[in-house]
């Protein structure tokens, strides 16, 4: 089961604003994106993220998993995440 590592001192604001001090880049996230980002920061695995999201949002696990895969790909693409 994959675990992920998010660079230190990255904080996402309540409005979904993310600043990367090392590069000066900024990003915006929608509400679910924000929730997932925070869950990943606490060290949850993919499965744990999925079940946590499904408890809060009206979605089925397979849709959530598909979208999470895509989202993780995006985070990696922006170097906001590395796999442990």
């Amino acid at each position, binding site marked *: 089961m994959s675990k992920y590592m998010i660079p230190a001192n990255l904080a996402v604001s309540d409005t979904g604003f993310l600043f990367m001090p090392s590069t000066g880049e900024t990003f915006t996230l*929608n*509400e*679910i994106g924000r929730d*997932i980002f925070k869950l990943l920061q606490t060290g949850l695995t993919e499965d744990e993220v999925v079940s946590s999201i499904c408890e809060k*949002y*009206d979605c089925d696990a397979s849709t959530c998993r598909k979208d999470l895969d895509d989202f993780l790909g*995006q*985070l990696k693409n922006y170097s906001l995440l590395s796999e442990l």
Partner: protein
Amino acid sequence: MSELKRYERPIINKQYSGFMNKFGTSPITTPKTEIDGIAVNHLVEQFGSPLFVMSERRIRENQRNAYRIFKTRYPKVQFAWSYKTNYLDAVCSVFHSENSWAEVVSEFEYDKARRLGIKGDNIIFNGPDKSREALVKAIRNKSKIHIDHFDELYLIIEITEQIQMKAEVAIRINMDVGVYPKWDRFGFNYENGEAWQAIKRIMANKNLKLVGLHTHIGTYMMSAEAYRIAATNMALLTRSIRDEYKHLLQYIDMGGGFASNNTLIGQYLPAEQVVPSLEQFADAISSGLFSLSFSAEDLPLLILETGRALVDDAGYLITSVLANKRLSGGKRALIIDAGVNILFTSFWYKHKISPAQECGVYQEEAAIYGPLCMNIDCVRESITLPSLKQGDKLIIEHVGAYDMTQWMQFITLRPNVVMVMEDKSTELIRKAETLEYIIERENLPAKFQKK
């Protein structure tokens, strides 16, 4: 857990500081869940997806509005519906019931108009391709034949001698109105005297009756001034004909070409901000016709063959999301069930595209591709849209002009077309194609036929 929140895909967007987002300041996409009061979901359940939807109400509003705008500026106005723009019987019939004549450019369109009961003399026959048979038909029916070239003129003379009938003719005139490219491949040129040559030739023939002059200076014209120049030239020619031959023309036909509210690819500002209004086009034409300085009773009828500006915004295409994808560079792509084969106009327009169900406020840039297994099948290179999932619906707006005539049967079958009627009922006005419909035209040589 009873209070589950609405789910949408997680999204992250990178911000480019210092620049305004190239789509302007984050546009708000409002979903469009119904067309003329009919729920999109309901339409799709009944007629499938993709689905073209025409609005009877909008066509009538557009036509009445355009008539009022011209009629308040010039006393004698007649519209002729440009068949090539959308020749579905139901669409033509709405225009005809608003008193529009038919403007056709082929024998096929001519026959279609006749089938709908349009009187011969209410048909304007344009275009460079009129066969002998088509001309005979048009002459017998007293249709208004707009001559495109000298070969056609001589063919008409020959036919009138053969069948011993007079023909009602006009000539199409091309001219320099300061717009490039110049449309000089249709008709006779004004500046070099070719048009006057043709007029002389017609006036000298007892079997030909010159009833009008025609021009069509281009399509999706963004300059009202071009119409003022064109109308002035037409007026001057009309006056010369009166002065030289003591002959009054019945009409001046200014063609079509007014831009519709669709934004061109490569155009930075939205169409509403750059396209002249119908009032501006009408002002330009009526001020050009001022050069006639005829008495009121001698004024010729002003004919307009307006196409896209009357029907574009009366057409919608409902389409469904087949899949979400990520391109190699990270950009989002949507695959939808409507391709460029049925949305020909996506090659030149950035259509307004709205989600057809409630959606989140968070938006993301995406490309939209059709379902054809072809690289050219790109409906939109870039658009900001909220997150959409498989099965979600989109409405592509302003597709009433040319899409339903220039569409292609390619790889798949063309979909249903419905019309939402004024009384809010829906009518299927063109049935989706079937495999049988396609192969009915084919013939398999006997040696390939399975016993």
